[in-house]
């Protein structure tokens, strides 16, 4: 199966319809807010809030659960390693140089929740904004068009290269290829596949060069955008609201 790098969940909720620039700004502010959350309770509240917003915007539970599963390894690593890196507070258990403490465990929980909050804040942007919209937002914010194009081409061709990899691997399995033995041995077995994939990728990029030239990438004098971005009143109100909320929260957190 092909892994697609397009995480967009099509929909028409308020969040979907907002200008991507307003959403980029909101994501930036929420990332800063994540670092100001004072305690575990606030972190949980923040996460719960994002879940509610996403569900209300039509992102299904399955998608959210998928993100939880993707984050699981990182969360488990943090929970297992972090307590021993910062042994503060009352000691619960100790083995040689390793000390498990209440403070260390609380610290790990905080760090894990922070990682989750960051992931969900970024996912909120990606789930509700299509790639072309995101790219044109970045271009409108000053990124050169060719950079934006490069980003979308990479996202387009990663799955194509992955498909090529599967095709070549199947073809070689049909000629007696089996990967077994030690990891080193298995990596070695993959060399012929990678050679064929590399040749195929080079051919693809040659064709892409021609395709872009044939439709006027270099002869284009002045590009226009079909879906030109417009900051409407709603978008300004959203950006202003989220900025005010952030300032209030930051002032309240930092005043002491």
């Amino acid at each position, binding site marked *: *199966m092909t892994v697609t790098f397009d995480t967009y969940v099509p929909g028409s909720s308020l969040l979907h319809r907002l200008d991507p620039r307003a959403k980029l700004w909101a994501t930036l502010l929420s990332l800063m807010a994540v670092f100001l959350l004072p305690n575990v309770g606030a972190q949980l509240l923040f996460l719960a809030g994002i879940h509610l917003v996403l569900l209300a915007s039509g992102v299904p539970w399955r998608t959210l659960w998928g993100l939880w599963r993707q984050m699981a390894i990182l969360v488990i690593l943090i929970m297992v390693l972090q307590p021993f890196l910062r042994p503060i507070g009352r000691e619960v258990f100790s083995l040689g140089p390793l000390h498990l403490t209440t403070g260390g465990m609380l610290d790990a929980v905080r760090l894990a929740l922070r990682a989750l909050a960051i992931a969900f804040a970024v996912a909120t942007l990606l789930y509700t904004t299509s790639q072309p919209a995101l790219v044109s937002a970045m271009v409108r914010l000053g990124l050169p068009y060719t950079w934006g194009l490069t980003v979308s081409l990479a996202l387009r061709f990663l799955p194509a290269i992955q498909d090529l990899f599967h*095709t070549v691997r*199947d073809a070689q399995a049909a000629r007696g*290829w089996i990967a077994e033995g030690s990891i080193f041995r298995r990596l070695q077995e993959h060399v012929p596949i990678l050679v064929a994939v590399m040749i195929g990728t080079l051919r693809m990029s040659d064709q*892409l060069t*021609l*395709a872009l030239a*044939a*439709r006027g990438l270099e002869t*284009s004098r002045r590009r226009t955008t079909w879906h030109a971005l417009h900051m409407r009143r709603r978008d300004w109100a959203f950006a202003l609201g989220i900025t005010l909320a952030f300032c209030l929260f930051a002032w309240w957190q930092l005043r002491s």
Partner: protein
Amino acid sequence: MISAQDITFSYASRQADERPKAVLTDCSLNLGPSQALAVMGPTGAGKSTLSYVLAGLAPRHTGGTLLGSVAIAGHDLRDGPPAIGSVGVLFQDAATQLFNTTVEDEVAWGLEAMGLAPHEIGQRVEVSLAHFELTAVRQRAPWALSGGQQKRLALAALWTMRPGVLILDEPLGGLDPEGCAEVLAAVDTLREAGTTLLIMTLQPEMARQAGALALLADGHLSSAMPVTAWLEQEVALAESGLLLPTRLWPDLSPRVAVDHRDPAIEVQGLRFRYPGGTEVLHGIDLTIPRGQFVALVGRNGAGKSTLVRHLNGLLRPSSGAVSVMGRPLAGRAAGTVAGHVGFLFQRPEQQLFSATVRDEIAYGPARLGLSDVAARVDNVLARFGLENVADVPPALLGYGAQRTVTLAVLAALATPIVVLDEPTVGLDGRGLGQLLAWVAELREQGVTIVLVTHDLGLAARADRVITLDNGAITSDDTPAEAHGGSA
């Protein structure tokens, strides 16, 4: 609209001491508005290169040297690339020229590059989508479309820029009959709109539609002539390696009695779904006796490729069982079945990876631990006439020679069962003759053959024709002529 005088083109040579070989020699061509010309030529004759030169892409983006003059709509290409949107080119593999995330963005991209106002882009996108019947899939990703839809999308994205000249490279390549009909209809509408059409093709029906025909052989382009005159000269077309008339096909009838007691392949209650997807195969039961030649036909997406991928263990049934040569496949790695089932994939030329043709052919027998690898390789090199390129990297060979290597690779394995998935796609007459001659040999040896094809004429030569539709077998017939053995 197109005016080319005495063009000679060669790519840069790979080695410094090697003289560059001319791909095109002294080609001249003149086409006015709403004229159409089909350029037919065997594999490797330079059709793709000619289309790149006339579109102003070669040598600008490919390297190489061009002599002579080309003018498109009065613009001399020596003065720079053609004006944006003045000439469109449909690549042989349309999928490689689609690079946007949705169908409608694909159509809009060129219009944005032209700098049109947003409302005009919107109007033109609507018109093009409707024109090429893509409105229903406008939000889909281009790479999730069928082959026919991809070609139509590439055409829509070109046509919407209103080019005076359109160059189409093998517009029917790799399409099922339905996809061919779709593209032929689309080409018709382009002609009616007054576009100058230049069509590189191997297909007589495409040439017939263009009306006029020029022949490209070894880089030399003949002058244009009416299509009927040429197609009547079947013998000349066969001699140039372009076509293989059916009456020149080798005898593919069975030579060895089919053994009905001992099946080569047994499929029982096979159901299959991709992880997280819907069911693709809905309970297939199929027994293929040893030595039988079975053709598997059906529309794109019917599940043909999915079914045959179960025959060598590349895919595992969700439920049901598959046995090959009397042994169940369950629990065996695909690589261990390779000694029993040889498999020719679609686009086989993409799967070549070795440093030399000899290594490429030796790879399979060596993986299977066969004792006589060197002798097998020598035999196969001689059989397919590959001795003089035995030490050349297969990636550097021409397309036709690469296809020959893929047959040689399969022949060296000498398996009792051979699965051929769309083996005739992209083959000229010479390539088809080579494939059929080999199939005739397999029949003599009593090899069991499973052929997936859209070519109903070829399917009719099999002992048995199975039609697959929507993941189920809808008919299982024996063509009239195969009744009662070698008729």
